[in-house]
C-alpha cells in the first residue's frame, strides 16, 4: 500500500500538517518513505518539525467557511490521496463541502479526516458535511474520530494534563466514563490505514487505545512525572456542585480534606499507645474541571460508532508504553 491510489509517484496531500497529529503523520509517512508528502502550510514559522523532511510545502489560507474550491488547488491538484488533520473554530459545513469539492475536482478518490469524537457545533458540522459531500460527489470520505489523543507534542494529551497536575490534584467523578484515550502513533496508523486501504472506505470510525483507561489512571500517570498524586476521586454530585460554583471559591480548595476532629483524635491516641500511624497524604490544591468537561466525561464517547478496527487497523501502544514516551518527551521538550 502506498496511500496514493496505487500511483507511487503521486503525493499525499496533508492539511493540518503543522499540528501535533499532523506533524506526527508527516514524520511517519515521509520518514518511513511510505509516500511523498505535500503539506499545506498557513504559518511558515510553525513548520520546524515537518521541514526536517524533504517534503513539498505549499502555502494557502486557513480552511474557513469562506474557502472556495479553487483555493485548495495548490495542495490537492496532482495528489493521490488527501489527509486532513485540520481543526479550529473557523471550520463549519461550508469548509467541509469545499474540501470535498476540491478533492473531487483534483480527481482524488479518497479523503481521510482525523476528527474529534467529542466535537460539537461547527466542528461536528464540518465532519458531517465531509461525509454528506462525499456521498454526493463520489469521493470516499473516512472520518477517523478520536477522543483524547496523547503523546509527544499533543497539547490536550501531554502539556495540558502536565500543567494540571503541577497545579494540584485533578478532580475526577467516581462515575466517570472511561477516558477515550488513543496514543498519537496509533491514531496516525489508523489514518494511514484509512488512506491506503484497497476497499471502499466511507464513513465515521472511532479510534481508541488497546485497553480501557480511566481518567484517574491518566492523571495519576501524569502525577508520576512530577512525583505527586495526580487525581482526586469525588462523588459525582459533589463534583458537579463544585464545578458549577464560582471559580474564585475553588482556589482555596485542598485535597484530601482536613481530617475530622475524631480522625485526629484516633491518630493521636494510636500514637500515644505506640501503634503505627499511617503517613498522611500531602494535601494539594484541588483542580476542578469545568462543567463542559465533566459533561463529556460522564458519558461514553460515540457508543454507536463503527470502531476503526473495521479499517484493518488495531491499536498497539499500551497505555504504560505511551505514557513512558510522553513523559520522556515532556522532559525533553521542557527541560527548563
Amino acid at each position: 500500500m502506498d496511500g496514493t491510489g496505487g500511483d507511487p509517484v503521486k503525493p499525499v496531500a496533508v492539511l493540518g500538517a503543522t499540528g501535533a497529529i499532523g506533524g506526527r503523520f508527516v514524520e511517519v509517512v515521509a520518514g518511513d518513505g511510505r509516500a511523498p508528502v505535500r503539506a499545506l502550510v498557513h504559518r511558515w514559522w510553525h513548520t520546524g518539525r515537518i521541514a526536517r523532511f524533504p517534503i513539498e510545502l505549499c502555502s494557502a489560507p486557513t480552511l474557513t467557511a469562506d474557502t472556495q474550491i479553487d483555493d485548495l488547488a495548490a495542495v490537492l491538484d496532482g495528489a493521490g490521496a488527501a489527509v486532513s488533520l485540520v481543526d479550529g473554530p473557523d471550520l463549519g459545513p461550508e469548509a467541509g463541502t469545499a474540501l470535498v469539492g476540491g478533492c473531487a475536482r483534483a480527481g482524488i478518490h479518497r479523503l481521510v479526516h482525523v476528527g474529534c469524537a467529542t466535537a460539537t457545533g461547527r466542528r461536528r458540522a464540518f465532519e458531517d458535511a465531509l461525509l454528506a459531500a462525499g456521498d454526493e460527489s463520489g469521493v470516499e470520505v473516512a472520518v477517523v474520530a478520536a477522543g483524547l489523543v496523547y503523546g509527544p507534542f499533543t497539547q490536550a494529551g501531554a502539556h495540558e494534563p502536565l500543567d494540571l497536575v503541577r497545579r494540584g490534584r485533578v478532580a475526577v467523578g467516581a462515575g466517570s466514563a472511561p477516558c477515550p484515550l488513543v496514543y498519537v502513533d496509533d491514531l496516525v496508523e489508523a489514518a494511514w490505514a484509512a488512506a491506503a486501504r484497497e476497499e471502499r472506505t466511507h464513513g465515521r470510525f472511532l479510534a481508541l487505545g488497546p485497553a480501557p483507561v480511566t481518567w484517574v489512571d491518566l492523571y495519576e500517570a501524569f502525577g508520576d512525572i512530577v512525583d505527586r498524586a495526580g487525581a482526586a476521586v469525588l462523588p459525582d454530585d459533589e463534583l458537579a456542585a463544585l464545578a458549577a460554583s464560582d471559580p474564585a471559591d475553588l482556589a482555596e480548595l485542598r485535597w484530601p480534606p482536613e481530617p475530622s476532629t475524631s480522625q485526629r483524635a484516633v491518630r493521636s491516641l494510636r500514637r500515644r499507645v505506640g501503634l503505627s500511624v499511617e503517613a498522611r497524604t500531602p494535601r494539594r490544591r484541588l483542580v476542578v474541571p469545568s462543567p463542559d468537561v465533566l459533561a463529556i466525561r460522564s458519558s461514553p464517547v460515540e457508543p454507536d460508532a463503527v470502531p476503526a478496527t473495521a479499517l484493518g487497523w488495531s491499536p498497539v501502544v499500551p497505555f504504560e508504553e505511551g505514557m513512558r514516551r510522553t513523559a520522556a518527551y515532556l522532559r525533553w521538550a521542557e527541560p527548563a
Partner: protein
Amino acid sequence: MHADALGRAGIPVAALIDPDEQRRTELAQAWPDALVAAEPGAVLDAFDLALVAVPDRFHAPVSIELLDAGKDVLVEKPMAGTRADAEAMAAIAEATGRFLAVGHVRRNLAVKPWAHALLASGQLGRVERVEASQGGRDDWVAASEGYVAQAVGGVVANQGAHTIDVLAWWFGPLEVVSCTDDSRGGQEANAAIELVAGSIPIHLELSRVRSLRNTIRIHTERGLLEVALDQYQPKQLIGVPEGVEVAPFVEQTQDLAGQFDQQLVGLADALDGRWPDTLATPASGIQVASVIEACARVRTSEEPWWMAPAVTR
C-alpha cells in the same frame, strides 16, 4: 521591523524593493511617500544606504549588487550561509569603500554589551566553560517560505546565528568540534553543537520545538554568570558570581522594536565613524557564516528519539 524603526526615528524611507507584486501593493499603501520597485536597479538614485532583509539565501547576491552600485549596506543576519559568500561581501565593501554591517539585532539587548564589558575586564577570571541554549515554539511571523525552503534555513543558521554571533563576540573565533542535528533531508529543527573558543569549550543547544533556557551560562573561576539571550525572560541578568564587585546593571523592559531602534542608533554612530560594540562588523559576519558552514559540513544526523518505532505488545 527595520522600516518601522526608521519611521519611529523620523528617517524617511526612500524606496522599498520586493519582487512580489502583491507585497509591493501592500508596501505602497503602507509607505505612500516611498518609491516601490521590484528590483534595486530601478531606484538606485533614490537612496544611499540599504537595509537588506531578503530571505537568507539572497543576502550575498543582493548585498554585493548594492555595494557594487556604491551603496552602504546593513544586511540581516546571517551575513551569508558560507564563509566564501561572506568574504566576497566583505571584499566588495573594502574594494568600493562602502560601509557594510550585519544586523545581529539581539546584540542590542542591554545586558549583552554589559556582560561583554564585564568579561573583558577580567574580573571574573578565567572562563572555564560555556553552555548556551536557545529554543522555543517559534513565533517569528515569517512572510515567506524563505524561512525553511532554502539552503540556509534550519535552526542553526536562522535562530542560532544570533547566539553564535554573541559567543564569537565575547569569546573570540569559534571552531566547530561537532554538530548533531535532526535533519532528515530537510532543515534541522534541533541541533547540539560543541564549539571551542581558544581553550574554552562551549556547548550550544538550539531548537525550534523545545522550550530551552534561552540563556548563556558562563562558568568562570569566580563563579557563574548567566544572562538572557532574548527579551522574553523576566530578567536580562539572571546571575552573577557571589562576592564579585561588578558594574551595576539596571534591569529594563526592552522589546524587539526597542532593539531595532537601538540598532539604528548604532548604525548612525558607525556611519559617523564611531562603530559601537553592538553593531556586528563584516568580520563578525564572516565568523558566523564559517560556523554555519562548518556545522553543515561536520554534522551527523541523529534520529530524534520520538521517531523510533513504538515498543508494542
